């Protein structure tokens, strides 16, 4: 058990810090949350800066244009960029963290050459067309169908919860190519150009009032068969290769951010007098323990994946269960520190509290995560 970093890791950290100190002051002002073209330009601009400095695709394999960095280097990168207040991955999320790695793992040489470099260089944005109105937790029940017509698939159906759909160039799309096969075996993975005729994007308003994601309606959209990654009807496996590829780094930046936010909250409580409330003060102390422990668990998981060479694991479910709850507890405690300000939509705490509600739902609800932990780690029988 060793929590110290190697000289190489420390050097990586020092060079990254130095670079961040140099470039962050020159960043353009952050666009407003509703300015989607502005957000796209800002996020792509940041990705281009990372690319030019040699930090793009840090965790991607070298033969896909990535840096082949170790999980620990990736942890350091996420920790330092968060601490320095660098931009988030934003519109580059799907390209860098899902569609890209999927293409890197399962795509042909031609597909890799076409789609991967623009993601790394910050030139193209991807969105994800997985969930449907009737296929949420039961994703494999998806019904958007693709009919073969010559060299094209003709796709009809609808997708939901698609982030950045308004400004995406490509959509990683799951479609049903065999309606008669068992549900997991009739799905294919397509790269759909978002400017194809027949696509309608309708923004969805969240309970926080923002339009963070959209519904996407597909009416006879033609997608070349050449855009299919993997074999026809093998799309479920193709998708899961990446979905389960978890190196323990998924929430590094967020845990670092939560620890900073908790410190801000404690100082706020000192200022407004709520710190004298013993029960509330101890609750903040407990949250300090919670996030320190989550940081330690992150280091544990990252070291584990470093040892196993990044073998897919389900430890991420354990982490997400605890973290999503802790994040909601943090913003509930914030509301008790702030009093009436917690009801003011102009307070950033209010929006963050509202956003925290999505954490126990997005990317696998806590109920689904508990099933995964019980069945895949503890070996309990399947059944509902």
């Amino acid at each position, binding site marked *: 058990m060793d929590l110290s970093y*190697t000289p190489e890791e420390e050097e990586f950290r020092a060079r990254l810090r130095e670079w961040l100190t140099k470039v962050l002051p020159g960043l353009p002002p952050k666009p407003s949350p509703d300015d989607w073209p502005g957000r796209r330009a800002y996020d792509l601009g940041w990705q281009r800066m990372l690319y030019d400095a040699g930090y793009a695709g840090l965790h991607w394999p070298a033969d896909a244009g990535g840096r082949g960095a170790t999980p620990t280097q990736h942890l350091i990168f996420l920790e330092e960029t968060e601490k320095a207040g660098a931009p988030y991955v934003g519109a580059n999320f799907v390209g860098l963290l899902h569609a890209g790695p999927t293409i890197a793992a399962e795509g042909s040489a031609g597909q890799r050459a076409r789609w991967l470099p623009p993601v790394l260089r910050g030139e193209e944005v991807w969105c994800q067309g997985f969930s449907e109105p009737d296929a949420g937790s039961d994703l494999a029940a998806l019904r958007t169908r693709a009919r073969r017509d010559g060299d094209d698939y003709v796709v009809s159906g609808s997708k939901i919860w698609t982030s950045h759909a308004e400004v995406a160039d490509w959509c990683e799309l799951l479609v049903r190519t065999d309606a008669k096969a068992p549900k997991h075996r009739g799905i294919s993975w397509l790269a759909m150009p978002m400017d194809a005729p027949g696509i309608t994007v309708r923004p969805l308003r969240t309970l926080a009032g923002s339009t963070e994601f959209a519904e996407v309606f597909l009416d006879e959209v033609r997608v070349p068969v050449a855009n299919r990654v993997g074999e026809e009807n093998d799309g479920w496996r193709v998708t899961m290769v990446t979905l389960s590829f978890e190196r323990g780094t998924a929430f590094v930046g967020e845990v670092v951010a939560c620890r900073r936010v908790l410190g801000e909250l*404690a*100082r706020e409580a000192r200022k407004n007098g709520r710190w004298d409330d013993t029960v509330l003060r101890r*609750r903040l102390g*407990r949250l300090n*323990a919670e996030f320190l*422990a989550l940081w330690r668990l992150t280091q544990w998981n990252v070291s584990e994946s470093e*040892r196993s060479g990044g073998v897919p694991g389900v430890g991420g479910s354990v982490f997400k269960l605890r973290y999503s709850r802790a994040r909601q507890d943090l913003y509930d405690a914030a509301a008790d520190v702030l009093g009436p300000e917690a009801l003011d939509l102009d307070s950033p705490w209010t929006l963050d509290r509202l956003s925290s509600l999505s954490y126990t739902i997005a990317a696998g609800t806590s109920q689904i995560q508990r099933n995964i932990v*019980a*069945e895949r780690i503890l070996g309990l029988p399947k059944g509902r």
Partner: protein
Amino acid sequence: MDFQLTDDQRALRAGVRELLDRRFGRERLRAAVDAPGLDRALWRELGEAGFFALRLPEAEGGVGLGLPEAVLAFEEAGRALLTGPLVATHLAAGEVPGAATGEAVVAAVDGTVVEWLDEADAVRGDVTGAVAMRSADPLTPLHRVPRAGPPDPVAALLTAAEQLGSASRTCELAVQHARTREQFGRPIGAFQAVKHLCSEMLVRVEVARGAVYAAAVTADPLDIATAGLLADEAAEHGARDCLQVHGGMGFTWESDVHLHLKRAWLRARRGQSAAEAEEALAADLVAAAPGPRT
């Protein structure tokens, strides 16, 4: 960074588990419940195996290992519900003659309680006015004392390690039962209501594990306070959920679940209280030089 067990640490853990399986398995555990008392032969065997002298320098006849190894050994002790003043004797090694080798049994005042006072050859702390009580834990005789002893961070960490071992064991016991006990024509572990109890037990264990192991590496007071809070939670809540999964059987004397729960309650009373740990962690949030940030 390599925050995982080394091969030597894995071997040490396996060795302690094997020793305790052989010398303090279920039959021996239940015999101890029926006839309480300290097994001096086992105590000496633990001494020979280096359990008490683990962190003593080799020059002083010890094993020369560190806190991480001690934590792994105490985790196994907690898992096996091993009896005796383990933490007090371990801490007395090198100071109280015979403690390191298991020739002596050393008790210590922790809070306002002393475990195993009547069996002890030496006692650390002021036990003037000690009064015996009927202990809720059938495997740990207790005395109350009027004056509290000072908290010891290493004792707190080793206690957290025992809690972690117990929590991990109750999770296993619950899962074993849920796999084999059938109702409505299928194993109760196939029902989500039961499944989710078990999943939450594992989550608490794994979060506590990271905290306990990190505290063993850093020996930082805040890491230790965190480890104590989370390991207590994992052990107490875990034993309760294990009891719940066992249903009526869990409420019987013959089940081992109550032994874990009662010991977890007892250990949670050692060292600083949860309120004190939370206050220390709160103070850190507004300190000029905060504790471990990364």
